[in-house]
């Protein structure tokens, strides 16, 4: 893979299919927690890349787009959006198999907790490694909340340090063994031990003769994998499960949408919530759409009749678009934009295929 960002942009543009601008790609990759971006990631099945490139700038995205244009892999499509050319599609097909970092990556689920998890894991490993080898050390990061967490965790352990070390070793060994050699190496070398301060992405990139961004993605992919298994398999990975269990929240809603959700669950209507919270109806509608996209058990049936749902789903499939305007033209003026958005949010995955 020559340039990871180019690949990623190509990947997103293919999914967006000309229906979103470059700024949507930017918000998606940088992980903007707005209702629109969260929905986009659902509708266009881009959840896994949500927030995986937090430091990327709009400028870098624009530059990457210029490069893709120059290669004739994308072509302008309307205002500030692009679609893939045939050559672009072929390029993407060709590169996809080597995009190993898309294997377990789940930005949508983990983008807000991966850092905390890594802080915990790296500090636990550093502490145990130094204790085992009887060395004093300086913590590898300066995250106060993590210090306290790790201290409490280690103090709560009844077993001798050598046993704890062995148990953690076995958990990490098992998980790394089911990763590729490259990913297992990246995770291991990023860790700080009694004898080595962890390597930076840049240093790992030199070691692997690759791009630092590629290393970063591989690292996140491996981290998401570890988090997922640790979360699910408490009995196989008791230590790692302890590290992850309070971090993974099932709902990733914006704060304000979360409040709205709580009112709706108490049985309030959209109008009522708007009045209670002193917000515009349209704002509450945005929240409802966000909730529909993110909360599986949230049913949209009370808000919209089954027939309309079916009509919208059918039109979406027939037209092969997610542009609200085109869908509304097809289903008729009596269906509101809000209703269409609601259906798309809820049916995101189903209607996309």
């Amino acid at each position, binding site marked *: 893979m020559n340039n990871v960002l180019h690949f990623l942009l190509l990947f997103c543009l293919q999914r967006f299919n000309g229906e979103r601008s470059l700024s949507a790609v930017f918000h998606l990759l940088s992980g903007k927690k707005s209702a629109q971006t969260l929905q986009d990631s659902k509708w266009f099945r881009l959840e896994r890349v949500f927030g995986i490139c937090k430091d990327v700038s709009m400028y870098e995205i624009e530059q990457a787009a210029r490069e893709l244009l120059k290669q004739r892999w994308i072509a302008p499509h309307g205002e500030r959006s692009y679609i893939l050319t045939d050559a672009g599609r072929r390029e993407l097909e060709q590169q996809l198999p080597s995009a190993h970092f898309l294997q377990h990556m789940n930005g949508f689920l983990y983008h807000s907790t991966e850092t905390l998890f890594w802080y915990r894991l790296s500090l636990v490993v550093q502490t*145990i490694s130094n204790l085992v080898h009887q060395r*004093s050390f300086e913590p590898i990061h300066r995250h106060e909340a993590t210090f306290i967490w790790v201290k409490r965790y280690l103090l709560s352990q009844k077993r001798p340090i050598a046993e704890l070390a*062995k148990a953690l070793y076995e958990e*990490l060994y098992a998980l790394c063994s089911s990763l590729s050699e490259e990913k297992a190496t990246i*995770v291991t*070398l990023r860790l700080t031990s009694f*004898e080595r*301060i962890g390597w*930076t992405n*840049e240093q790992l990139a030199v070691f692997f003769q690759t791009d630092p961004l590629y290393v970063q993605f591989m690292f996140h992919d491996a981290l998401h994998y570890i988090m997922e298994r640790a979360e699910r398999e408490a009995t196989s990975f008791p230590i790692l499960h302890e590290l992850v269990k309070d971090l993974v929240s099932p709902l990733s809603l914006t704060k304000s949408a979360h409040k709205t959700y709580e009112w709706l669950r108490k049985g309030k209507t959209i109008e009522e919530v708007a009045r209670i919270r002193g917000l515009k109806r349209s704002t509450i509608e945005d929240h409802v759409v966000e909730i529909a996209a993110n909360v599986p058990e949230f049913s949209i049936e009370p808000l919209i009749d089954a027939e309309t749902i079916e009509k919208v789903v059918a039109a979406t499939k027939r037209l092969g678009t997610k542009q609200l305007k085109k869908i509304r033209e097809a289903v008729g003026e009596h269906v509101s934009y809000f209703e269409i958005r609601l259906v798309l949010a809820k049916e995101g995955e189903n209607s996309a295929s």
Partner: protein
Amino acid sequence: MHLEQLLEKTFGYRSFRLGQKEIVEDVIKGRDVLAMLPTGGGKSLCYQLPGYVLRGSVLIVSPLVSLMEDQVQQLRTRGEKRVIALNSFLANDVRQAALADLRRFRFIYASPEILQSPKWFAALKKAGVSLFVVDEAHCISQWGHDFRPDFLKLGDIRKKLGTPPCLALTATAPPEVIDDIVATLGLTNVRRHIYPVDRPNIAIKVECVMSVEEKIERLIHYVKTLQGPGVIYVSSRQWAEVLARKLQAEGIDKTAYYHGGMDAEQRMLVQQQFLRDQLQLVCCTNAFGMGVNKGNIRYVIHFHMPGQMEAYVQEIGRAGRDGKNSIAILLYTHGDEDMVQSLIETELPTKEQIQLFIEHMAFSHTAESSAAQLLPSMLGLSETQWRMLSYIFEKERSSLRGLEHMQANMLQMIEERREWKRNKLNEMRAWLFRSLCRREQIVSYFHQRLSEKPVACCDVCGLTLENYRKQLQSDDEAAWTFHSWREELKRMFFKAGKLDEKAD
């Protein structure tokens, strides 16, 4: 107990370094003290030791979060548990407990911003501050090289805390800046402890070359021949990366770059690697250095000149903190000052930015409103520019003389700032080209006198590089030797002899 005994008991040192004892004595007596100690002179001990004598907490105001964290870490490593850094990232339960009772902390570190918070302020007032320490106090002065408007409010905060005795610390401040510090903090009957800025164990060399290419060649030569560890200062993030890669390509490994654009974890890794001698060389912007407590830095090379003498002295002062012979080399080529000049220009807001800023502020009325949070990026203002404009705005708005007047005043103040920076740069330039002893020039810049010249002084007095040549390689090979990840994991968690017990 005698101070010396206390020193040995709490810090494990046998004796004080230059100036420390006198400063500590005055602080314990409850005097207002201004202390200027050279970089690496052990400033933090001047308030940490009194912390074990005085009743009540010592409050330390510091400009940089990272600097605070480093010092908190150092105290904790020494075994001091009663220390806290107030910041907005504290975990909820820790914050609640601290707010309820700050008194149980011997040392409280805080940024000037957090002192603006009524809650924290009330907690501090309740706790009773026995000593009010201002670290890097030159940030107070508009004419200090990293002016921080928030520092100006410290005089007021101190008064509201009941005017506890104050200790203002700085490493590099010319007399006019010192006067500014005394006035702003409202220090009365102040004891001034000004110690020589000169660091006799650092030799100084300036080398003029014909082109940037030649400069790179010289740099490679020095890095290959001088005894490390070393630091290379450049003027931009891009240069830091370019040079680090160039040196690596030359076969100089154990080299990394460091700048403010990297994420916090990567920065920390580089800093720690350097501290542990896992790295021999760091190419960096001026973001690197503060809080890096490394004794054995043997050379500092300036690939680009800094914009003023204060910065230069502070940066070369990172070398030789262990007291051993070290060298500072500045590489100059024609036109370097233009680059610094254009950096100065980009640091200052443009006329259009000022105009837009005022228009927006006129509507939102206060710099703290939520809409204003987006303003810096909307107007393309850097953090420094934003701070500067907000400061002037707050100061000017009380005059109530209309927007046009304010704009004219702002422009004038920015213009003055530009002029002042130009002068600073000219002084730096003059230092480069004057054929006088470099050390004497530095010392007289700070209105001091040189008591004694070291044998290895500077290129003007005559200097041989023989003593700085590479001899032993102290670096850490283990850190760069990679086995397989399986082997690595084992080494991490098991003691060497016990490896065999664990068979998979």
